[in-house]
Structures are given as structure tokens and as C-alpha cells.
């Protein structure tokens, strides 16, 4: 069990990797009633082609999410178990992982033991799979009414050609309709193994006790005997589809412009992935965020009513995605494309940007659940939790930001528009 101080705070993170490969992180936050725990499995919407003992399988889209639903099928119902203590329990599936978690303030030890044993077995029959299909298809149908979600999914689909990141986590209707018990069991047996899991516990807990319980309950789990590999095809730098319009029940058009950037572009900067993330966010926030001159100019011209950006990454690429709700979508895109050729940045803004990141780190520690997610994100993005972010942020260098800016980042573009139904 190793101990690291989080920034200059009084809170520490305790870490250990069990022999079977399971990683455990614990943060005790004193003065809190609540605790939260998540067991995350590295298996999500982005898993499409896999090799198991050198045999290739093409997984159906939406299978990780379907499996998440089916994990709740147990004789001792998880919802019933946790409600006894008034504890919330749930799960979520993203592109990269499936996480099972609880948040509560009573009977921590029993709660943790349950979580750890829960994830060990899958016991389902065909009838139960059939029933779940109906529920998931309803869920998918609900998402089709949400224009923001439709836009987000379409941007992924049109930006990527072969990377499974292009798929919706919930899957296509056709795939949801054909996922079988055997499909689910194959995934469970090969991905729900300790060497593919991370346990994170935060809040009102004693670290020693957490490790004790985890070892007692998880040490018997064996590493996966099968050799499981994700098959990755080379994703080209070009986008899959440069332009698309969708008609929907919206009052004001929504538009997204996505840029795809090969990660190799940043190799010469010689900086860590975390630093690159901060620089990239800073570059966009300084030049296009709420303190930028251009945003003010565009707001005055009424080029949009609301907007935000998102930076995502796959194994090979970054995407920088701009979203806006606007009645002047053509003019906005024209202005954006022109401005991206020469983004405006300055050193004062960069210094303020650092304050923003520092404040973010301070606020995290006030919420056990937020620290949990911060650790999870780090583990997925960087392989480990970064505990000294504040000192790393303080030492960032404006010259590197300028170098980053000088790179031609905005070559490969995909535009998606959601326009009101024709009346």
C-alpha cells in the first residue's frame, strides 16, 4: 500500500495493485458522512473487434451497455440490497469503460463486499435477455428525441472511419435486436477479469479496511487465462463525412464543427499527456472562451446564442469539437474557420488559465464523488492518478503554448447541422 499526498492538501491517496492485476485507489476525506466506491471495467462502447486466443470476434455495437444492464439481473437484487442502507447504486457505460458504483453513508463494509462479489458472476437466461431488449430499445428511442445527443453521436460517426469510437455506446437498433446470451457471456468472461478492473473508493472510509476487504474478496479472482487483444485498424487522418444536415424537431438550429488531429503531431513537444491536455484546453479556452475578444465580437453580432467546446481523444487522434445553437450557422462557421487559422493568445490569459485549473483541483477535494471521477479519468487517460497537478500546472510554459498554436491543427473538418423540420 503506497501513500501519496494530493497536491498540498491534507488528503492522501493510497494505492496498491493486487497480484491478479486489480488496481485499487482509496482517498479518505475527513468530516464527510458520504462515501463512494466504483469498480470500473475497461470495456465500453469502443470495443468492436477483439482477438481472443488469436481468434477474431466482431462484437455488436451496444454490447457493453447491454451487459451493464444484465449485470443487475441477480437473485439478490443490487437495488434492493443497497436500499436497505439508503445507499444509491447504479452503473454507467461510456466509450472506454463500464463502472458500477454506490454512494451512501451507512454500512460501508457490507456495501463494498457486495459490490466486489457482484461483479464476479453473470447468471442470465434467454428470457431475461429478451426482456432487457425491450427496455434498451425504449432507452434508445428516448435518446432519439434529444437533439444534443443526436448531434454528439453524429459528430463521432462522421469524424471517424474505422475506429469504434464512431459507434454509439447504446448501439444501433439492429444490433440491440440481435445481441444474445452467448454474446454477453463471451464479453463477461473475457473482460470482467481483475487485470482489467480498477477499484476506487473515496470519502468517509478507512483506507486500511478497504484494502483488507478488497484482498479478502478479490484475491481469489484469477487473471484472465485467455489472451485478449483489442484489434485496432489504422484510423486515417481524413474524416469519414465532411458535411451532413439532419432535420429534427428543434426550434433553433444546432451546429457542430469537429476537427481531427493525429497525436503524432505533438511528439516533438516532448511533454506528458497530462500537460498536453492542459495546453490544448488552454489554447482553445484562451482563444475562443469567455475571456476571448473574438467570442465577444461574435456575441455582439448575434452569431450564436450558446456554445461550448469539447476535446476528446482516441488511441490515435484528438478531436476538438465546437458546438453552437444559432440562427446564423453559415456565418458562424465561416468566421470560425477563418479565425482558427490564427488563434489569439497572450501570456496574461495563460496565467489566469492556470488559476482556473488550480481552483478546479481545490474544489474536487470537497466532493468525494468528484475525486473518484478524477482518479478514474486519470487512470484511463494516463494509466495512473496524477497527484501533483497543481505544481505541474504552475510550471507550464507559455512558449510551449505558442508552439502548439503554430501547428496546423484544423485541417480535417467534419460539420454536422441539426435544422428544424420543414414546416
Amino acid at each position, binding site marked *: 500500500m503506497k501513500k501519496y499526498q494530493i497536491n498540498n*492538501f491534507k488528503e492522501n491517496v493510497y494505492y496498491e495493485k493486487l497480484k491478479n492485476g486489480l488496481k485499487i485507489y482509496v482517498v479518505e476525506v475527513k*468530516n*464527510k*458522512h*458520504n462515501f463512494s466506491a466504483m469498480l470500473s471495467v475497461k470495456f465500453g462502447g469502443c470495443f468492436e473487434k477483439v482477438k481472443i486466443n488469436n481468434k477474431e470476434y466482431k462484437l455488436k455495437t451496444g454490447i457493453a451497455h447491454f451487459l451493464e444492464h444484465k449485470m443487475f439481473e441477480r437473485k439478490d*437484487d443490487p*437495488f*434492493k440490497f443497497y*436500499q*436497505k*442502507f*439508503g*445507499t444509491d447504486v447504479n452503473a454507467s457505460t461510456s466509450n472506454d469503460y463500464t463502472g458500477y458504483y454506490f454512494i*451512501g*453513508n*451507512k454500512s460501508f463494509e457490507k456495501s463494498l463486499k457486495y459490490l466486489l462479489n457482484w461483479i464476479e458472476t453473470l447468471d442470465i437466461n434467454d428470457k431475461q435477455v429478451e*426482456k432487457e431488449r*425491450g*427496455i434498451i430499445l*425504449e*432507452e434508445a*428511442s*428516448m435518446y*432519439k*428525441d434529444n*437533439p444534443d445527443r443526436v448531434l454528439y453521436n453524429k459528430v463521432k460517426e462522421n469524424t471517424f472511419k474505422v475506429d469504434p469510437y464512431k459507434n*454509439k455506446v447504446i448501439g*444501433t*437498433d439492429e444490433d440491440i435486436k440481435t445481441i444474445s446470451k452467448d454474446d454477453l457471456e463471451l464479453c463477461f468472461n473475457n473482460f470482467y477479469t481483475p487485470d482489467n478492473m480498477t477499484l476506487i473508493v473515496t470519502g468517509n472510509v478507512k483506507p486500511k479496511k478497504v484494502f483488507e476487504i478488497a484482498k479478502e474478496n478479490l484475491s481469489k479472482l484469477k487473471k484472465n487465462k485467455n489472451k485478449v487483444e483489442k484489434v485496432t485498424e489504422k484510423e486515417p487522418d481524413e474524416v469519414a463525412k465532411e458535411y451532413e444536415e439532419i432535420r429534427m*424537431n*428543434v*426550434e*433553433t438550429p444546432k451546429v457542430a464543427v469537429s476537427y481531427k488531429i493525429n497525436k503524432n503531431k505533438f511528439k516533438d513537444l516532448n511533454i506528458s499527456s497530462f500537460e498536453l491536455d492542459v495546453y490544448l484546453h488552454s489554447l482553445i479556452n484562451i482563444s475562443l*472562451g*469567455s*475571456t*476571448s*475578444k473574438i*467570442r*465577444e465580437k461574435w*456575441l*455582439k453580432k*448575434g452569431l450564436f*446564442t*450558446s456554445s461550448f467546446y469539447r476535446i476528446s481523444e482516441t488511441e490515435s487522434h484528438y478531436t476538438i469539437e465546437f458546438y453552437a*445553437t444559432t440562427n446564423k450557422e453559415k456565418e458562424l462557421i465561416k468566421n470560425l474557420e477563418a479565425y482558427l487559422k490564427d488563434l489569439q493568445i497572450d501570456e496574461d490569459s495563460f496565467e*489566469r*488559465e492556470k*488559476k*482556473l485549473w*488550480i*481552483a*478546479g483541483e*481545490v*474544489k474536487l*477535494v*470537497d*466532493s468525494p464523488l468528484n475525486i473518484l471521477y478524477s482518479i478514474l479519468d486519470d487512470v484511463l487517460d494516463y494509466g495512473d492518478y496524477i497527484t501533483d497537478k497543481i505544481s505541474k500546472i504552475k510550471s507550464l510554459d507559455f512558449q510551449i503554448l505558442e508552439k502548439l498554436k503554430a501547428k496546423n491543427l484544423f485541417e480535417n473538418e467534419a460539420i454536422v447541422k441539426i435544422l428544424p*423540420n420543414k414546416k
Partner: protein
Amino acid sequence: MELKRINKNYYTLHLINTTKFKTVLVKVVFSSKIKEEELAIRNMLINNLLFSSKNYKTAREMAIKKEELFSAELYSRNYRRGKAIITEVNLVTVHDKFSEKGIINESIKFLFDVLTNPNVENNMFDKSAFKINYENLKTAIISEKEDPNFVCYSKFKELIGKDKIFTTSIMGTEEMLNKITRDNLYTYYKNFFKNNKIDIFVIGDINNQQIENQISSCFNPKSNISNFPEASSSYEKEFNEKSEESKFNQSKLIMGASIKKLTNHEKLYEGIIYNIILGNSPNSKLFQNVREKNSFAYSISSSINRLDGMFVIHAGISLKNYEKTKEEILKQIENMKKGKFTKKEVKDAKEVVLSVIKEVEDFPRAILDHYFNHLYLGNETLKVQKEEIKKVTKEDIIKLAKKINIDTIFLLKEDGNEEISN
């Protein structure tokens, strides 16, 4: 945690001293009786005040200032509680210990500067800021119509036929918005402090005297209102069922019941337990029977709204399942009256409430919300709440269940003509 309440001339200052958090939260609350003609303008005012000010002329200057203050968060919330409208302006700032000396003071100064020095010239709000905020609010009002849940709920409330104030969006309507000008917004501002009860809450690791002096020196409103407005309302209705067409992919169903016959104690305690057992948890009767057992619906939940005097069930369904879903819901409501639930279910539901009460103390916002509800909206202290919840029995729930009868059903139908696409 130590609480101090100070009655100033025109506002009440509430200071909660605690070392639990790394941030300081300041909340300024304006409360008054809700009036239809005020809905849109109240939003416009608060949005304009927080958008720019005399000293920070543009949204950009405001944003720069906030970043300098270690990313101070300044945000508002405008909400209805029964017949009262409550407008909050919140400031969250990182404690000096984790940023730089003087950040808390500087942030508080900034907050009150924003409230008292609006971006006004010649008795009119700034033109460009006004226009942007007008467009934003307009878009927000219009996009509510894109949300099937909102659309269905509004139509449902119209069907109950309470005051119009109750069915109109808290943001107002486009017609109301169109009546607002830069001058009449300023006139409204000049009377705003006068026409609202004002409370200021500060929670964090603070020096009480210093905070009190600082706020006195920068905020001197002249409010005429010293009492919190009466909030609770109720309705009564003959049975009514209606449906309407829509363009959405999924149908939405709402079934509602008046809780006028419930005692105040039942609304505060037994009603909460009833709601959890029937429809507000994954173990609930509705979730288990309507969704899990029969796959009639993807989403189903219930809620009890004490101050509006109603109990409501929401479901997202396929149109073909409408009759079956309705029958199943009605059957579950009948079963509650017959006592077809276990003592264990009552116990588990109580644990859920006790857990929620306990976690209030973990979050500055939750502490202030609880304290505000206790002061003005009839909730009891956390300690009393815990005791009263523990006392609830199965018999109490049956007694209450017998008073709950669905009186209004509204169905928003999915678009049957459109092909479902991915």
C-alpha cells in the same frame, strides 16, 4: 458548525462557520409572491445583472475578473415554490488558504458591486448586453418546447386548471419577453430590492465580524418586505383524461392526484415514504411492475410536491402500451391502499430518506438549501426530520394511500408517421 443570524435594517444575514470545506459560498436570496407579469422580466433582470456591470462593462471583462479571483463562480437560480418566487445569486470562491490572501474579500466585493452597479446609462440597461440576454432567454423559452417531458408536464398542468401562474414556465413566455424594454427593465430594477425579502447566507471557514462589516459597507438595499410570502397552494378536480399528438419519438404519460386531503405531517413525512415505495426508486412498485416485469416503459417515476399540493407519476412509453401501462399504474395505486407492501419496504424507504438527511451536511449548497427551507418553507430541522421519519409505520402509509386518487391523466402521443431512424 456554528450558526449566527443577524437582522440588519433591510435584510437578514446568516453566517455559518465551518472548517469542513475548501470553498466559501455566499448566497443572496430575493423572495416574493409570484406574479405572472414578473416572470420574464425577473429573469431578464438577473441575467443582465450577472452579464456585465458598470465596472465590468462586457461579458468578457466579467469573465476575466472571475478568472483572476481563482475562477470565482457567479450564478443565479430562479425557481418557484408553490406561490413564492425565489431568485438566488450565488458566489463560490476558493478559500484564501488554497489561493491567495484577500481572494474571499475581493470576491464578496465583486458580488455586491455586480448587484448594485448595473450596466446602465441614461436610465436604460446597456443596449448590447440587453440584446444578447433577450436572445438567450428567447431561445431558452423556445427550446423548452423541444423537451417532451416539459411539454407533457405543461399540458398536464393546464388540464388541472390551476392559476395560470402555475402552468406558465418560470422563464415566462415570448409575449411577456417582448414587452420588456431597456427602460422598463431599469424601472423594475430600481424597485427590485424594495419589493423582495432579502436574505444573505455565507458558509465556510470565515471571520464573522469581518464578513458582516464588509457586506454592510458595500450593500445597503431598502427592502419594504420583511416577511416571507405564503407558498403553499392546492387544487381539487373531477376526473379528467386527455391526449394530444406530438412530433416526438416516444410517448409521455402523466397521471396526477391532488394531495389536498393530506395533513401537513403526512405531506412532510408519510407522503415521502409512500412516494418512494410506489414510484421513486428502482425497487418501487411502479419500476418493478411497469418496467422490469412487463417492459411497458423505459422510464417511470413518481414525485410528491407538497407546496403545489400534488402527487404525480411520469412515464416514457410506446403508444401501443398506453392502456396496459395505465391499468398497471392504477392497479399499483389500489394495492397501496390495500396494504400490499411489506414492513421491510417501509423500513428500506425510511433508510433512503435518512441517508439523504445525513448527506445534507456534506455539501455547502445542501446545507443552505435545507436551512432556507426550514426558515421559510415549513421543513423541520434535520434532527426533527430524522425522528419523525423513524416513527412512520405501515398503517400510517395505508391511511395516507386511501386519500390518493388519480384525478388527471394526460398522454402526449408519439409521432406515428415518422420512420424511426438511427
